[in-house]
């Protein structure tokens, strides 16, 4: 499943009998049609009307150093002239000195506290001899009016509506609270540094799920109604029609906020990108910082988890059950009799983040995040999910931060020994060695990485790892000189020295959810074989997969049996071409680009992985670009003289890069003018 577009946050699904209505449309009221203008001095009338209607008004108020939500009895309790500064792990109030009452970004409390309270009585259980009974606690919530609900919070209410009311089962307590609540929204005219509703497609402008919506101007408020209840309220308020200037200024102030936020969390493909990262080492790195204190989940306006607790009398005959806020970060949350399924903090963080941005989509059709940024500001150690998402599941076009297992014997002088298990000739001059007794770091290597291989008396040579087996790796080696000839002259049980795995890898995770094009020539297929293995192992994560492979003659093709097996699968398109045919060759003859320069597919949704002689790659890149692939989605390898393999010896420096350390796999966009330039 690919979530390529921002998901619409449907307003409250409005179960029968609810007061909350569908998307806003201009609603005629009293003497006309909105939008209306309410003078600042008359805002108190709105609060008074809501209270006259028997509602408890929940609105913004300064409590203990933050603009939080509390019962508001009069307009004087609103945070006039108060703003805020929010960065990861830090929130501070700012006194502006003006009279504006909604010019702040969301604080730690959201309407969730009233629609899904932290503690709700469930029942009283009784035992009398052998008989037991459970008496449900009455559900009799107050009639509420929320004042100052932001667009992100409206979206969050919509999300919790789906969770609690979307069926097949519904939460009656939530339903009762929600049904009775009236919502006065406010469009945001400011944003904190932690805000990212623009990325999540939820704000800063309220687009539904409210009864009234206000936009604050210096002199008052532009008001629109979103429901008959809202229109009814307006009819009782001292409003007049908003003039064109007021409407323009209102629109501009909200538009300015959207521009301020930008798009810090690109959501295209996020679902698949994130789910591809279950085994990422990044979870452990986050866990070094994460306190698993659950603050992020508690301030989150969509997190909906809870536990049931009992308190019994001294004899265990009467017990009261309560539903309390509980979250996936606590120890007991995933515990069964034998222990916890998520005992490690890294497991809990992964559970939370993948739920918010991926599995929530599968369950409820939207992200579980509305971009309010509360989890960023209120994290005691300032973990910023926007940054974590970018690191762990980088969007197309971004350079992923390489995460590499620590190589074995990283110092140039030291080699670990490994043993040749088997030797398999591929062509007249190419042989594949299967190597056992290797350090586990090799087995955890990534597709496209290489090893420095040495035998005494010969210079070490960089060799791509052509397969990661269960406890072996393959090295496919062409006899290009004395050292390589010496290595492939060895037999089973002979030992060799190895350092690695080294270098960058094919970014397979970025290809998930996309078409894959692999173009290669000659021995260039060797470093791509693990990529193909990886793709085939999780074939359903990728769209179409095409392999274009050119060789000098049919006898120069590597892995001929595997090429046939891949083609026979039916879900990998394998096209072969040779420079010079032989009498029994029935396939095409020519250069590899001939295989696809006439093809009908386009590269709009594709990633390309290219490996071969530089001239061949140049021609390939040109053809790929003409098919619509941008340079940040074409990955190539460079071959240079390498000695140390870790960016210390200087041999492989090319432009600003060390090919061994910064490559050998590069996005074409990284190479700029280096690629294909003679004499580099």
């Amino acid at each position, binding site marked *: 499943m690919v979530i390529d577009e921002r998901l619409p946050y449907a307003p409250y699904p409005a179960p029968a009998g609810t007061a909350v209505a569908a998307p806003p449309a201009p609603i005629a009221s009293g003497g006309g049609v909105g939008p209306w203008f309410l003078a600042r001095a008359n805002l108190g009338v709105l609060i008074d009307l809501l209270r006259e209607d028997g509602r408890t008004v929940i609105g913004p108020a300064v409590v203990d150093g933050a603009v939080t939500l509390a019962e508001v009895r009069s307009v004087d309790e609103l945070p006039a002239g108060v703003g805020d500064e929010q960065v990861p792990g830090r929130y501070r109030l700012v006194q502006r000195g003006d009279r504006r009452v909604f010019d702040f970004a969301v604080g730690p409390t959201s309407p969730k506290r009233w629609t899904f309270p932290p503690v709700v009585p469930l029942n009283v259980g009784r035992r009398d001899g052998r008989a037991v009974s459970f008496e449900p606690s009455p559900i009799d919530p107050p009639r509420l009016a929320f004042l100052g609900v932001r667009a992100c919070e409206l979206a969050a209410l919509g999300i919790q509506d789906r969770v609690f009311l979307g069926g097949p089962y519904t939460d009656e307590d939530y339903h009762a609270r929600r049904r009775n609540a009236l919502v006065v929204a406010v469009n945001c005219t400011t944003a904190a540094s932690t805000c990212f509703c623009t990325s999540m497609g939820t704000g800063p402008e309220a687009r539904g799920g409210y009864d009234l919506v206000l936009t604050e101007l210096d002199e008052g408020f532009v008001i629109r109604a979103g429901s008959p209840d809202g229109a009814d309220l307006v009819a009782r308020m001292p409003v007049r029609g908003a003039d064109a200037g007021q409407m323009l200024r209102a629109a501009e102030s909200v538009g300015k906020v959207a521009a301020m936020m930008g798009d810090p969390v690109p959501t295209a493909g996020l679902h698949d990108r994130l789910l591809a990262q279950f085994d990422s080492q990044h979870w452990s790195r986050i866990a070094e*910082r994460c306190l698993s*204190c659950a603050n992020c989940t508690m301030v989150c306006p969509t997190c909906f988890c809870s536990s049931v607790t009992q308190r019994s009398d001294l004899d265990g005959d009467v017990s009261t059950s309560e539903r309390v806020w509980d979250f996936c970060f606590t120890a007991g949350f995933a515990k069964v009799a034998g222990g916890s399924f998520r005992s490690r903090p890294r497991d809990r963080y992964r559970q939370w983040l993948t739920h918010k941005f991926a599995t929530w989509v599968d369950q409820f059709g939207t992200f579980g995040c509305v971009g309010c940024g509360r989890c960023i500001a209120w994290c005691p150690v*300032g973990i910023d999910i926007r940054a974590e998402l970018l690191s762990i599941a980088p969007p197309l076009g971004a350079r992923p931060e390489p995460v590499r297992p620590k190589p074995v014997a990283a110092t140039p002088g030291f080699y670990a020994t490994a043993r040749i298990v088997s030797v398999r000739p591929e062509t007249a001059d190419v042989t594949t060695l299967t190597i056992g007794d290797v350090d586990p770091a090799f087995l955890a290597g990534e597709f496209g990485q290489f090893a420095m291989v040495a035998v005494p008396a010969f210079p070490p040579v960089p060799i791509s790892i052509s397969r990661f087996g269960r406890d072996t790796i393959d090295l496919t080696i062409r006899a290009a000189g004395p050292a390589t000839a010496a290595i492939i002259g060895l037999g089973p049980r002979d030992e060799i020295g190895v350092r690695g795995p080294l270098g960058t890898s094919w970014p397979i995770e970025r290809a998930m959810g996309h078409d894959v094009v692999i173009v290669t020539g000659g021995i260039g297929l060797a470093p791509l074989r693990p990529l193909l293995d990886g793709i085939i192992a999780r074939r359903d994560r990728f769209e179409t997969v095409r392999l274009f492979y050119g060789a000098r003659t049919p006898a120069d093709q590597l892995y001929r049996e595997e090429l046939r097996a891949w083609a026979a699968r039916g879900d990998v398109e394998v096209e072969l071409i040779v420079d010079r045919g032989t009498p029994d060759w029935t396939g095409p003859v020519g250069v590899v680009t001939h295989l696809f320069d006439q093809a009908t597919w386009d590269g709009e949704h594709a990633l390309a992985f290219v490996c071969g002689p530089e001239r061949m790659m140049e021609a390939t890149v040109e053809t790929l670009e003409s098919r619509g692939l941008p340079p940040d989605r074409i990955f190539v390898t460079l071959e240079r003289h390498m000695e140390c393999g870790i960016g210390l010896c200087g041999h492989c420096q090319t432009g600003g890069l060390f090919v061994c350390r910064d490559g050998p796999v590069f996005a074409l966009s990284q190479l700029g003018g280096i690629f294909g330039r003679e004499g580099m």
Partner: protein
Amino acid sequence: MATVAARPRLRVGIVKMASCDGCQLTLLDLEDELLAIAERFELVEFPEASSARSAGPYDVLLVEGAVSTPDQAADILELRRKAKLLVSVGACASYGGIQALRNWSDHDAIRAAVYAHPEYVESLNAATPVSEHVKVDAELHGCPISPDQLREVLVSVAVGRRPQIREEAVCLECKRRGTVCVMVAEGIPCLGPVTQSGCGALCPSFRRGCFGCFGPREQANATSLARTLAADGREDPDVARLFAGFTGWSGPFRAVVAAYGGPPGVIPYAVPESAEGGRDGRG
């Protein structure tokens, strides 16, 4: 209620080691239910309420205080033999308490500095939790303990189930009660994220940082919290002092204290200790 008479009263004893008695007084905080508790439990030893002493045995023995003297070290072995269930009660019994601060210093030097005749003072080099001496069946945390949790342990023993005590950070209690985070909103250092709940988030509700009296919660990432506090511009001794409180001798907090140079005011041993956080220092 009809079943009360049918159940034999459980013999409950409260004994103290090195402690202030605040934890056993917590039992008296269960005012509304004291009589009902007395109907169901026979309090055979309760020093703060009665001078009567018991020779055991005990169905439930609540042990308050750290093991701090040679006599206490001997007594606790004997008490364990007499108790079916032994529950360590409070920060001292469970973690060594505030008196464990002396474990970082040269004990003889402290005695010599404080007492005119240090030879009259018989105390061990270190104040240690009961669990370092005998098997403990359950621990109640806090300075003092929560009366509710004490009640829950007694009820669970009487009813025959597991005590329902949540494993979670103090933060959950803060957020449930609606307290604005003192650390994020005011920059007040707070151990809440790494401390076991149970107090009802009392200190933050008065705009004070949590000082960790309930001890480290499971998987407490004290290192990360310390790193954040230090990155916020605090000096190492201030970070160490924060963690070197009522439960500073607990593993996770002790590691932070050691990493940030030990608690302030330590009188070091003449022979340098390893950097790994002192020694367990019994005897």
